């Protein structure tokens, strides 16, 4: 009896962590930072050279279901045309360390780079600090196959003065007058109607599409006044993700994917009068 008890105690000690509270910030998440994944993507691009076609998987809102997230990642692993994954936020539900670590465990199963942007739920508790340590900056941009991807933080309730319109314009601007094939915005929350003029600002700065999560089901829409499409992927469930197909020089294509992918076209939405920019006196 004594030996069994000591054995049980040893097993319990070996299998547990000494945690001071649910709100520790030292999440163990090797290999998921934006910097590391962009380096992987750059190395991959260099190895394949210029291509005529590639796809990007868009996964969002996997919180509370790490098993489903892992299953989706394994599904995407088998899609050879997918060159990388955009993970559009809400990895955690309450922003505690354990939630991030489960998602990181799932992400470690990916054979493709995963580029992550912060969601509103990720920002709860001490999630902002964990995010900076584990994933890196809230705002960043990168270029792949001459397309510009601009990832930005637009979690307005949790952060002040976001999104940063000037930074967005600067990141979308062509380098030495050589235009991008496409400029694509990436954030967790689709543009808010109350954020007057934001959509027009993106359009004026040559954004061709924005992709998001947050709304928990597939959606694809554009406001009538600027016709800038916004694609929203579903909350990740075994599997559920969006697919962006990129042909340099041709319009972007989007699909809603579960086991199969279905093409998606934007519906046109009329803005309420209060949300339209003022036309001046």
């Amino acid at each position, binding site marked *: 009896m004594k030996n069994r008890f000591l054995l049980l105690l040893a097993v*319990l000690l070996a299998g547990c*962590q000494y945690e001071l509270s*649910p709100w520790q910030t030292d999440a163990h998440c090797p290999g998921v930072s934006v910097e590391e994944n962009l380096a992987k993507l750059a190395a991959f691009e260099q190895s394949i050279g210029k291509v005529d076609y590639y796809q990007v998987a868009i996964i969002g809102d996997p919180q509370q*279901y*790490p098993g489903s997230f892992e299953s989706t990642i394994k599904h995407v692993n088998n899609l050879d045309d997918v060159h990388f994954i955009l993970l559009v936020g809400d990895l955690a539900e309450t922003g505690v360390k354990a939630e991030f670590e489960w998602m990181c465990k799932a992400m470690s199963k990916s054979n493709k780079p995963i580029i992550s942007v912060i969601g509103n739920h990720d920002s709860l508790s001490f999630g902002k600090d964990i995010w900076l340590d584990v994933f890196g900056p809230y705002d960043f941009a990168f270029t792949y196959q001459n397309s510009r991807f601009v990832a930005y933080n637009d979690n307005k309730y949790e952060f002040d003065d976001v999104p940063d319109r000037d930074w967005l314009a600067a990141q979308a601007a062509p380098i030495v007058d050589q235009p991008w094939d496409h400029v694509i915005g990436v954030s967790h929350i689709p543009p808010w109607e109350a954020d007057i003029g934001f959509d027009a600002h993106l359009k004026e700065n040559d954004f061709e599409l924005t992709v998001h999560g947050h709304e928990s089901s597939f959606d694809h829409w554009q406001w009538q006044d600027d016709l800038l499409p916004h694609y929203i992927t579903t909350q990740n469930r075994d599997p559920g993700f969006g697919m962006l197909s990129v042909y340099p020089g041709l319009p972007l294509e989007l699909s809603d994917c579960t086991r199969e992918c279905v093409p998606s076209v934007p519906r046109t939405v009329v803005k309420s009068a209060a949300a339209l920019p003022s036309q001046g006196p």
Partner: protein
Amino acid sequence: MTIQRMAVLLLLTFGQIQGANAVFMDLQSGSLMGMVHASVGGTFADNHHLSAGVGYVPKLDRHEEMSMGSLRYRYQNPYRWNFSVKDRSYGISPLNFGVALLVGSHKDLFVKLPDQYPDGYYNPTAIRLIFNYQSILHLNEQTQVYFDVSVLDVGLVSYVREPEFFMDNYDYLGLEGITNWGFGLRHQF
């Protein structure tokens, strides 16, 4: 500060329960309850224990400085295995389970939704439920030391919802991914 005031009030209240079968004081470290967590409680209806306490974590590189309050319930199974070492008697109670309501106090956590949010936008981030198992070593009739294994609310929910994920990715039936340990000392008056 409200949490600290509530906890002090509860501690004083429990301290006055002289009529309970046994009043105890408990000091714990780890297992999600703080670097140190002091509780006072009483034993009711034989095997059922209630306590209230306050915990503290200093500023560390892995933790903000924080205080916390708790209300805890523990069921202590009467089975006890007695043994002697060098003429001293000891006992082990191997089957004890409990649950704690833990409330963190820090400006980045909230019990009441801050004003900028619409009603019901988030659940409180400062309130957590912690489920625990304890293995108790009785040093004598008054004093116990214990080993505590705990699971956070979201861990239990995730494990029940997707056990395969945890079993595939963590050792010990996946429990490695959700459990935490701590230890403590309890003295009955």
